[in-house]
């Protein structure tokens, strides 16, 4: 059972973690959420990304949205930008692929070339 009281525990835990990390940041995930992205499964992709980030204590990663990129046939689209590295855009994703992108690209530092539609 979830209750509003849980939020205080999440806040306390998040505050402790922020202190430990000293506000480290620099990695950004962008998910396209136009009508095309939503119809293709962007919501499930975003939820999978957040689940994986939470499971791996990567709460400092910034997750943001954008609208339609004009590549509607390749949705869901997700871009990953790690500081000092080229931006990688992945296409035709699903929840399982999104989890793998978090573990391989963000946690382990190995972009998945096979799923990338552009790198720049």
């Amino acid at each position, binding site marked *: 059972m979830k209750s509003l009281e849980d939020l205080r525990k*999440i806040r306390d835990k998040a505050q402790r973690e922020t202190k430990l990390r000293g506000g480290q940041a620099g990695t950004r995930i962008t998910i396209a959420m136009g009508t095309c992205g939503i119809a293709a499964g962007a919501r499930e992709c975003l939820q999978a990304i*957040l689940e994986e980030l*939470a499971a791996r204590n990567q709460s400092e990663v910034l997750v943001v949205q954008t609208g339609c990129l004009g590549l509607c046939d390749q949705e869901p689209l997700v871009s990953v930008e790690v500081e000092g590295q080229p931006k990688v855009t992945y296409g035709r994703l699903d929840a399982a692929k999104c989890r793998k992108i978090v573990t391989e690209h963000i946690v382990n530092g190995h972009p998945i070339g096979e799923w990338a539609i552009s790198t720049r």
Partner: protein
Amino acid sequence: MKELSLHILDLAQNSVEAGARKLTIVIDEDLAADRLTITITDDGAGMDAETVRRVVDPFVTTRTTRRFGLGLPLLDAATQRCAGRLVIQSAPGQGTKVAAEFQHSHIDRAPLGDLGATLATIIAANPDLELDYLHRIDGRSFQLSTRELRARVGEIPLSHPEIILWIREYVAQELQQLRGGV
């Protein structure tokens, strides 16, 4: 869209793109009258009468602003398939109110779907948006307000992964209870 909750996510995105800072989502399930109404009100830029008139036409779109596309035409078609209608009220500078009505029991009505995931996604993508959610089923109701959530988590942004996952599960749980589940 497979779920009405995906249309809700899409409309919320429209509102955000129109510069909304406040968004109210009301879902009214009136089982006695066999009506389902989804109303989304924002304080975004709004539209003039001419734009409101043609916004449900997929072939007349002002793509430069990305404000319109297939989203509203798809929802309009979904309501009309289910003995319902889509009503849009808007004026420049006055925000927009979109009400989608359906016959609740209509065989072609898509399920509401995962409203927890939709609300969690709206909040994750727009952590500074002021969102009020009200879901009524006959006499009972469930409410969620980002103002109240923020008061509890303090300076931690609502987009924190653990808060988003909590929102998704909490909404799902409370809506199940509202429907009389355990």
